């Protein structure tokens, strides 16, 4: 059985080309079904890959499928396609599942996408084993390394900092200043961790209302902040205002009403919306966009160093797969050898059957069975070891020749 992978990814293909071969989950599933048994199609925004396991060479089928998908008449696709076989293909899938081939090392979404592709595909025993191992190593890398723990974007960094201040974001009140994209992204990050958006304040009330409705929050103008500052736990600011809209005095006045509860302020605006001296107030923690970018840069370097550990785990998993795959070469020979000796044992027992009592027959059966199991144990282990060391086919041929395995089939 040969494993073939043909794909297109963000490493070499521009987005214009990737979007031509991108498939939604339903189309991926139907394409896998069209490709027959032992086929899985993995399609995300960064890659489209076809995994095929066949006795024959499946590369041509995979390339023509992708070419047809891309409607590529100019041959543009051929220069960015990658083609991998067997162990290299398995290693690639393991790296993909572990997030090591992603734009942001360790990103979490890819593991779910690999799982969905596997479940929607048409895996036979071979791809079933391969993808289960991929999902296993993907989970293991995330559990045993810190590759996925740190935020990879400014909005995620803001949310991660909130978790340094508050034990649980459940029930924490967020005040958004500005209704732009950055505010929304940060708000969504905080909401995904349990926080609630209490109010959206904006110079243009209509824009505030649009965003407030999507979060079930209250919309207000920038002049009505005083009350909200007193009850908010987190303030996210990203207005396009040209000057400071919240001063130290504003926060200090509101802070008295807070009874010492901490306040995290995230200022994503340039020029800044929040007076930097707010950070001097007791219990107030102010981060601007430079601070957050520094956090992201540091965690990204942390992710890269964790990636080295993850590569080791993935490499070990790929070795395990290679051993299993190589053992497939000798498995038919081992099965034939065992079938042969069982056949000999059965026929000899049948011949002796009339001379033995029921009790004696059971004893002889048991003893011969144990003898054969012990006799075949070491050759079986040695053949599997040889298979892992790439000598498996030679050993299998020698065993088949010595024991005459398959000769009757050939004669027939």
């Amino acid at each position, binding site marked *: 059985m040969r494993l073939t992978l043909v794909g297109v990814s963000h490493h070499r293909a521009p987005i214009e080309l990737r979007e031509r071969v991108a498939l939604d989950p339903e189309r991926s599933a139907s394409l896998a079904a069209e490709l027959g048994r032992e086929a899985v199609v993995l399609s995300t925004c960064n890659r489209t890959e076809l995994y095929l396991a066949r006795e024959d060479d499946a590369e041509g089928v995979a390339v023509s499928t992708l070419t047809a998908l891309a409607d590529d008449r100019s041959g543009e696709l051929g220069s960015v396609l990658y083609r991998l076989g067997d162990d290299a293909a398995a290693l690639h899938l393991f790296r993909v599942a572990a997030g090591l081939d992603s734009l942001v090392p360790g990103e979490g979404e890819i593991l779910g996408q690999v799982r969905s592709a596997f479940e929607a595909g048409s895996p036979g025993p071979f791809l079933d084993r391969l993808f289960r191992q991929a999902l296993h190593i993907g989970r293991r890398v995330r559990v045993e390394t*810190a590759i996925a*723990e*740190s*935020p990879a974007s400014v909005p995620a*960094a803001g949310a*991660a*900092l909130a*978790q*340094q*201040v*508050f*034990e649980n974001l459940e029930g924490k009140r967020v005040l958004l200043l500005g209704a732009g994209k950055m505010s929304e992204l940060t708000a969504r990050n905080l909401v995904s961790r349990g926080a609630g958006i209490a109010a959206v304040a904006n110079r243009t009330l209509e824009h505030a209302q649009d965003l407030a409705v999507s979060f079930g929050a209250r919309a207000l103008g920038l002049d009505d902040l005083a009350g909200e500052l007193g009850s908010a736990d987190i303030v996210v600011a990203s207005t396009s205002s040209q000057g400071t809209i919240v001063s130290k005095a504003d926060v200090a006045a509101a802070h*008295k009403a*807070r*009874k*010492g*509860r*901490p306040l995290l302020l995230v200022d994503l605006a340039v020029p800044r919306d929040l007076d930097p001296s707010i*950070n001097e107030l*007791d*219990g107030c*923690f102010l*981060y601007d966009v430079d*601070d957050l970018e*520094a*956090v992201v840069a*540091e*965690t990204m370097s*942390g992710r890269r160093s964790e990636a080295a550990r993850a590569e080791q785990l993935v490499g070990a998993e790929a070795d395990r797969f290679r051993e299993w795959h190589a053992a497939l070469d000798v498995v038919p020979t081992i099965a034939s050898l065992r079938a042969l000796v069982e056949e000999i044992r059965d026929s000899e027992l049948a011949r002796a059957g009339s001379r033995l009592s029921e009790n004696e027959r059971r004893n002889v059966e048991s003893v011969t069975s144990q003898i054969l199991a012990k006799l075949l144990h070491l050759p079986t282990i040695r053949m599997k070891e040889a298979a892992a060391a790439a000598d498996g086919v030679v050993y299998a041929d020698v065993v088949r020749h010595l024991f005459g395995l398959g000769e009757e089939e050939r004669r027939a």
Partner: protein
Amino acid sequence: MSELLVVPALLAYGEAAFAYAGELRGPGLAGRLATWGVRLGWVAQTALLVGQATSADGFPWGTWAGALNLFVWLVVGAYLIWGCKPRYRLLGLAVMPIAAVLLALAWVGGGTGLEAGGDSGIVLAIHVGLMLAGFASLTLAAGMAALYVWQERRLKRHERGLLRVRVPPLDALDRLAARSVLAGLVLLALGIGAGASRFERGDFDVAMVVTIAILAVYATLLVLRHEGWRGRRAALLNLAGFALVAVVLPITHFAS
């Protein structure tokens, strides 16, 4: 023979103290080794205390060194309630070095042997046990306060590695420290109540004055916290109270 259990307990606590320092570089093997060090050390010390209790005629922790031994066991036991959680591991950095040093002192002072304690009696045992449990609770609260001050400073200064080193969230440290102080105050009050039944005119000494002062400081802390004195100021007051516990109380105790 069981008195030798102090050796594995001390080694395990020492290992934990060093391993927690390794956790500062980031979560991983060092943190897990530290947690297991605490667990194994505490089990060894528990066995030691059981050995002391079964072989002694009276209360075996009546001496200062014996009390220190029991105190360390209480502190580490209280720490284990939270310390096993990965997010709270670094609290061990504040607790385990103190535990290791105090247990070593208890060993040197003869508080880990199997000899019977001096003055014994159930009332004394209850009094000493409650007072030590109260001080253990305050020690834990001080550990949390110290961690709060450190983490608050890092957050204010936007220090590097903020997310790499797993420190408990600020409001969790603030809340748990307050709870530990409350528990410590209740235990101390009960301990003083138990000791008062043996109190005679002329027994009054400086240590008792300091103990009352400690009670007053911590009670003030809880009242102020209720009025909004949370966060850094509460943590500093907590540490000031602990200075009385850790420095002044032993000095006055030996002096009186």
